[in-house]
């Protein structure tokens, strides 16, 4: 057996050394990073004890007298997530058709569209929020636009991948019966990709609830604004209450969208 599988029993020294070498290199960079980012143990433990105090002061969570304001802010956050995602999906659908290989075979046409979507995606939602605040002013509307733009990039990519994964037989069948390219898309392609797209949109509404909670930190509305303010004035009980609210809201959205996703995809699978 040893003679037949020499590699298993006597691995060459290079192969044996590769893994530890990689691990050592990874940790060397880690140590360098810790030093470069001034991670001194004393600072770390001082901060840790401070953090301990902060968490002690967070108990019990208490909204004070501003519960209505927080509820309104939470509503704002949910609105931002819903509207932003919907807008993004509506605009991304036609563009994603243009970015899909089986719709637009020309590489030259597709390449700039893909790179365009990539660069939108490369910029974080918070940066988009800052840009939109410059355009429409502070407030939730800037948040909606920020989420719409940054998701537009993500959706464009995801949708076009779904479209590329679709079966071409239906499309060919419609072409054979004399359908126009628009017919091909409407009756051959859309029924296949719609469940996938619906699932993704629902998933994004969920994840955008999370993003929408933070864009308020730069002033684009929603519960993040309240959170950032309460953190800055060190009202820790209110902070912990707000964090709890966010956790509950996200869990609720998770639950609802899970049900909905199942309903949409399940119904499609049956039909």
């Amino acid at each position, binding site marked *: 057996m040893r003679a037949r599988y020499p590699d298993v029993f006597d691995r060459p020294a290079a192969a044996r050394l590769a893994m530890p070498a990689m691990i050592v290199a*990874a940790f060397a*960079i*880690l140590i360098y*990073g*810790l030093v470069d*980012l*001034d*991670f001194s143990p004393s*600072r*770390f433990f*001082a*901060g*840790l004890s*401070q*953090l301990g105090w*902060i968490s002690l002061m967070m108990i019990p969570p208490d909204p004070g007298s501003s519960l209505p304001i927080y509820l309104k802010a939470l*509503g*704002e956050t*949910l*609105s*931002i997530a*819903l*509207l932003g995602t919907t807008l993004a999906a509506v605009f991304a659908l036609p563009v994603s058709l243009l970015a899909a290989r089986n719709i637009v075979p020309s590489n030259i046409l597709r390449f700039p569209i893909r790179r365009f979507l*990539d660069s939108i995606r*490369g*910029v*974080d939602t*918070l*940066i988009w929020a*800052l*840009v*939109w605040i*410059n*355009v*429409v*002013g502070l*407030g*939730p*509307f800037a*948040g*909606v*636009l920020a989420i719409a733009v940054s998701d537009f990039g993500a959706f464009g990519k995801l949708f076009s991948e779904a479209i590329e994964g679709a079966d071409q037989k239906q499309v060919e069948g419609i072409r054979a019966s004399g359908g126009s390219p628009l017919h091909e898309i409407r009756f051959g392609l859309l029924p296949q990709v719609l469940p996938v797209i619906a699932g993704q949109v629902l998933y994004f509404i969920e994840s955008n609830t*999370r*993003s929408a*909670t*933070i864009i308020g*930190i*730069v002033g684009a*509305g929603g519960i*993040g604004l309240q*959170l*950032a303010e309460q*953190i800055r004035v*060190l009202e820790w009980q209110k*902070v912990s209450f707000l*964090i709890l609210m*966010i*956790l509950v809201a996200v*869990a609720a959205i998770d639950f609802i969208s899970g049900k909905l996703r199942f309903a949409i995809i399940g119904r499609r699978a049956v*039909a």
Partner: protein
Amino acid sequence: MTVAVSILPEQQLAALNAAYRQAVARRRLRLLVGAAIFAAALVLAAIGAEVNLRTLFTYFGNFVSYFDRILTLDSGQRVWTDVGEWLWGWRKWLKMLGETLLISYVGTLIGATFAFALNFFAAENTSPSPWLRFTVRRLLEFARTVPGIVFALVFVIAFGLGPMAGVLAIAIHSTGALGKLFSEIVENADMKPVEGIRSTGASWLSCMRFAIVPQVTAGYASYALLRFEINVREASVMGFVGAGGIGQELVVAIRKFYYSDVSAILLTIIVTVFIIDITTGWLRGRLFGKEART
């Protein structure tokens, strides 16, 4: 070959047709009701988010002209006509960018280490006890649901301004996200090796080390790389709350209306994200390729 298609009598056919039409009508009604609820939710959301189409149309010019402005130098020329002037601060920016990458690297590695330590307790098939599993799961869920930047805000107050807060925030968020993904990989692992090793009288720890870890490392590495990619993006905004990295430069440039600097910094961020995307994609392919060969 002839196929016998039985043609149903008129009466039966009519009944079936009616049933079919009814089913279609029911489906359409359901779709319509769903669409109506969705539209109502949208309208409600539009009111909640203070959407004002008039503002959008009046200021849409601003959006276009904003890009016009950030692509114009102080001298009034387009930025690409004088690259040296446009990227005047490239030394400083590259340094900040390096800091951003370092923040995400260190954060991801610490997060991945913690996730690695915790995920065996969170997975259904390897957890030593149900209550431990429950606690670890809730802990990971908490770390994942609270956005990284919120942790950063709190840590900036506890640890002071600077990249340390950013690293810790990213580490905690990564622990939550990776812990969940890792434990899912473990749940999909083959349990036969574990049984084999347990039958030799080995402890829980050696079962994990010799039966589970060899199966899951490739998946772990792949997810950790993906997380690193996401964390680079996240670290680029950590500076907004004072937690280090290029975000600090960017927020200053945006707030102070240094237009051409905004586009220059954005360009460096986008290029970096591209490079990281491509490199990690290539690395992931290689790791998985290697795994497939052995």
